[in-house]
C-alpha cells in the first residue's frame, strides 16, 4: 500500500482501470468457457434424446412388425410380408446408424443384441413365410383339386350303383360321401381356427369314409381309386396342418420370443438412456450452477473491487484536488498560506501543492513588494509634493524677485540716465566709463529679470485659446527677430493651422529661432529651417540650423536655468531654452536636441493637436 502511495496519480488510475478491465475480461472468459461447457453437455443431452428417438422409432417399428406378421399369418397376403420386410430393412438401417453414433460401449452392446434379435426374427419370419406359402398352396390348390376328384369319382360310383340297384351299397356310398364331406369341413374349419381336435375329427371322418367305402362290393377298381384319392387328401391335409402348426409355432413361440427380447433390450436401452440423460441433466445443472456461481463471483468481485478502487481513487484525487482548489482560490485572492496541504506527496497533487506553495511564496513576495511600492509611492508622492512645493516656491520666488527687483532697477537706470543728462559734462573720463558700465550692467540685469519673469510666468497665466496658423506665427517671428546677418529662415507652406494657445507656441518658436540666428557662425550663409510632421495626437516641429552645433555633453545643461554654452560673447541670459522646455512640457509636449559640433543643431519638440481641458502639471525630468 505504501508502494501505491508512491505511484503517480496517472499510474494509479491506469492500474485501477487495468484491474477492472482484467476482471471484466475474466468474467467474459468464465462466461465463454462456461457456456462452451454447457453446450457440450447439451450436445450429449441431445445425443441421448436422439437415442431415445431411435429407440422409440424402433419400438414403433417392432410393434408394426408384429401387426404385419399377425396379419400375414392370418391372411397370407404378400403385401403384408413385403411391408414386414421393409420394416426389417428400416430397423437395420436405424440400428446401424444408432450404433455408429454411439460411444457408450454398453449401448453399443445393447444395440448389437437388438440387431442380432432382429436378424433372428427376420430369419424365423422367412421360415414363417415359407410355411405359410406351403400351407396356402396345399389348402388352396391341391386340396380343392383332390376334393373335386373325390366328389366326381363318388358321383360316378353312385350312378353305377344306381343301375345295379343294390341299396346297401348305395347307402354305404352316401355315408362315405357324408363322412368325407365332414372330414373336409373339419379340415377347413381347422385352417380357419387351428384346433387339434378338429384335425382328429377330420382324420376320424376320413377313416369313417374309407370304412364305408370298404362295404361296397364290386366295382372294386373305382372304389380303390376313390380310397386312393381320399388317402392323398388325408396326406395333403395333414401336410397342410403340419405347415400351419409349424408357422403358428414359429409365430407364437419363436418370433414372440424374439419380440420380447427386442422389447427387453429396447427397454434396457431406454432406461440406460434415461439414466444417462438424468446424469447429464444433473451434470448440466451442476455445470450451469458452477458457471453462474463463478461468473457471479467474478461480477461481485469486479463490482466490489471497482467500487473500492473508484472510491480509493476518488478519495485519493478528489479530496486533495478540492483542497488544492480551495488553496488556489485563496491564493488567487492574494492570501499567503502558512501551510499548503499535500506538499509532502510525491505524485502530481504533490507537484501541484508545491506549485501552490510557490504561488503562496510569490503572493508573500508580491505583498511585500506591494507594501514596499506603496511605501515608495507614499515617499515618492511626498517627494513629488515637496518638489512641487519647492518648484512653486521657486516660481513664486522668481516671480516676486524678478518683479520686485525690476522696480529699483528701473530706478537705478533712470537715475543713471538723469546723471548722464544733467551732469555728464561735469564727470571725469573715469566717471563716464563708470556710468557707461553702470548702464550696461543695468541693461543686463533687466534682461535677466525679464527672462526670469517670463520663466516664472509659464503656467501662471492662462493664455487664450484661438485658431493659430503656425505659418503666420513664423512670419511674425521672422519680422520681429533680431537678424543682423539676414540669415535665411525657411518653413514649408503647409504648416498646420489648429486650435491652441498662440503666445506660448510663439515664445517657443521665437526662442528656438532666435537662438539659431544668434549663435549662427555662417554669416549670410546661415540657414534656419522649420519642418513639421503629424505624430499621432500631436505635431512634431523641428528647428534646424547650420550653426556651430552643441557638444552632446551639454545637452542636459542647455535646458537648465541660467546655463549658457557656446560663445560667451553672444548676449543672453541662459534662460531661453529653460523657458522653451518649461513651456513645451507644460502643454504636454516633449523637447529634445540632436547636434554635433560643426554639424548644426536640431531642436525637435511636440505640441498637442488638441489641448487638454486643463493643462497638465509641468513635468520635471531629464530631456532625452
Amino acid at each position, binding site marked *: 500500500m505504501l508502494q501505491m502511495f508512491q505511484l503517480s496519480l496517472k499510474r494509479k488510475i491506469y492500474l485501477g482501470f487495468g484491474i477492472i478491465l482484467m476482471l471484466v475480461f475474466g468474467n467474459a472468459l468464465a462466461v465463454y468457457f462456461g457456456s462452451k461447457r454447457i453446450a457440450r453437455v447439451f450436445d450429449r443431452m441431445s445425443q441421448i434424446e436422439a437415442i431415445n428417438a431411435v429407440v422409440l422409432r424402433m419400438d414403433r417399428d417392432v410393434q408394426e412388425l408384429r401387426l404385419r406378421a399377425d396379419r400375414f399369418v392370418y391372411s397370407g397376403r404378400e403385401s403384408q410380408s413385403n411391408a414386414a420386410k421393409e420394416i426389417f430393412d428400416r430397423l437395420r438401417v436405424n440400428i446401424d446408424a444408432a450404433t455408429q453414433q454411439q460411444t457408450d460401449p454398453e449401448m453399443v452392446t445393447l444395440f448389437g443384441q437388438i440387431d442380432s434379435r432382429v436378424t433372428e426374427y427376420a430369419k424365423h419370419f422367412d421360415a414363417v413365410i415359407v410355411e405359410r406359402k406351403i400351407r396356402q398352396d396345399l389348402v388352396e390348390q391341391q386340396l380343392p383339386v383332390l376334393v373335386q376328384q373325390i366328389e366326381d369319382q363318388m358321383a360316378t360310383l353312385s350312378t353305377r350303383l344306381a343301375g345295379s340297384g343294390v341299396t346297401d351299397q348305395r347307402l354305404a356310398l352316401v355315408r362315405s360321401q357324408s363322412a368325407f364331406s365332414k372330414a373336409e369341413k373339419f379340415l377347413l374349419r381347422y385352417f380357419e381356427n387351428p384346433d387339434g381336435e378338429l384335425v382328429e375329427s377330420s382324420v376320424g371322418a376320413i377313416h369313417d369314409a374309407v370304412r364305408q367305402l370298404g362295404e361296397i362290393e364290386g366295382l372294386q377298381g373305382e372304389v380303390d381309386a376313390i380310397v386312393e384319392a381320399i388317402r392323398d387328401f388325408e396326406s395333403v391335409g395333414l401336410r397342410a396342418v403340419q405347415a400351419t402348426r409349424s408357422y403358428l409355432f414359429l409365430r407364437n413361440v419363436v418370433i414372440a420370443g424374439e419380440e420380447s427380447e427386442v422389447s427387453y433390450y429396447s427397454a434396457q436401452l431406454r432406461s440406460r438412456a434415461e439414466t444417462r440423460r438424468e446424469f447429464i441433466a444433473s451434470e448440466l445443472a451442476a455445470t450451469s450452477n458452477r458457471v453462474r456461481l463463478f461468473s457471479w463471483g467474478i461480477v461481485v468481485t469486479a463490482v466490489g473491487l471497482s467500487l473500492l478502487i473508484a472510491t480509493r481513487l476518488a478519495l485519493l484525487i478528489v479530496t486533495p484536488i478540492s483542497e488544492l482548489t480551495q488553496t488556489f482560490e485563496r491564493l488567487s485572492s492574494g492570501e499567503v498560506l502558512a501551510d499548503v496541504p499535500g506538499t509532502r506527496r510525491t505524485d502530481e497533487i504533490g507537484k501541484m501543492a508545491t506549485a501552490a506553495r510557490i504561488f503562496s511564496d510569490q503572493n508573500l513576495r508580491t505583498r511585500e513588494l506591494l507594501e514596499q511600492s506603496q511605501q515608495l509611492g507614499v515617499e515618492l508622492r511626498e517627494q513629488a509634493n515637496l518638489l512641487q512645493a519647492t518648484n512653486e516656491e521657486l516660481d513664486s520666488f522668481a516671480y516676486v524677485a524678478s*518683479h520686485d527687483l*525690476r*522696480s529699483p532697477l*528701473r*530706478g537705478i537706470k*533712470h*537715475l543713471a540716465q*538723469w546723471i548722464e543728462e544733467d551732469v555728464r559734462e561735469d564727470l571725469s573720463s573715469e566717471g563716464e566709463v563708470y556710468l557707461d558700465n553702470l548702464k550696461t550692467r543695468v541693461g543686463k540685469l533687466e534682461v535677466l529679470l525679464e527672462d526670469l519673469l517670463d520663466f516664472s510666468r509659464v503656467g501662471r497665466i492662462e493664455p487664450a485659446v484661438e485658431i493659430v496658423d503656425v505659418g503666420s506665427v513664423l512670419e511674425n517671428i521672422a519680422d520681429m527677430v533680431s537678424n543682423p546677418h539676414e540669415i535665411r529662415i525657411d518653413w514649408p507652406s503647409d504648416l498646420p493651422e489648429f486650435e491652441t494657445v498662440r503666445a506660448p507656441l510663439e515664445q517657443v518658436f521665437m526662442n528656438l529661432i532666435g537662438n539659431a540666428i544668434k549663435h549662427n557662425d555662417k554669416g549670410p550663409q546661415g540657414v534656419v529651417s522649420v519642418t513639421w510632421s503629424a505624430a499621432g495626437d500631436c505635431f512634431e516641429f523641428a528647428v534646424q540650423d547650420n550653426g556651430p552645433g552643441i557638444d552632446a555633453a551639454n545637452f542636459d545643461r542647455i535646458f537648465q536655468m541660467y546655463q549658457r554654452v557656446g560663445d560667451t560673447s553672444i548676449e543672453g541670459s541662459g534662460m531661453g531654452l529653460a523657458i522653451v522646455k518649461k513651456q513645451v512640457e507644460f502643454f504636454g509636449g516633449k523637447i529634445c536636441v540632436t547636434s554635433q559640433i560643426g554639424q548644426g543643431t536640431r531642436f525637435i519638440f511636440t505640441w498637442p493637436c488638441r489641448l487638454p481641458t486643463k493643462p497638465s502639471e509641468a513635468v520635471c525630468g531629464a530631456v532625452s
Partner: protein
Amino acid sequence: MNKVLPTLVVVEDDFVDLEIVKRGVAKRQMEVDILNAADGNAALDLLRSDRLTDQQRSQLIVLLDINMPGMNGHQFLDAIRADEAFRRTTVFILTTSDHPRDITRAYDRNVAGYFLKSNVGGLLETLSLYLRHVKSPPVVSLQPV
C-alpha cells in the same frame, strides 16, 4: 499769477517714479503744478485740505500708483469715489502692475486711463492732449468737516 495752472496730484511713494513724471513734464514744458502724496491717506488729506484752491480743484488730475505702503491705490479710489466731492475727479493710473484684475478694478472706479510706468511718455502725451481738450467736472464745495 495771472493764470491758474492745472494741478497734477501724483500719488506715488517712489522717488524715482515721481522724478520721472516731473522730468517728463519739464521736458515737455507742460504747464502744470505738481503736488505729491506718498500714499492714499496722504493724498486724501491733501485733497481735503485747504492747500488747494477752487480754481486748482477745477483743473485737478490725479496720477495714482496702485502698489504703495499704507493706503494703496485701490483703497484710495474706493475712498474718493465714495466721497461726494471727488467722485468725478479725473484719475489716471500709473503703475507697474499689468494684472487684468488691477486694470478691471481701476476702470470699475471710473479712472480716465490706465498706464504702465514703462510708458510714462505715453501718459504725459495723453495728459497734454487731455488738458488741452477735455473739460473737467464742476467743482463740488467741500463739506465743512
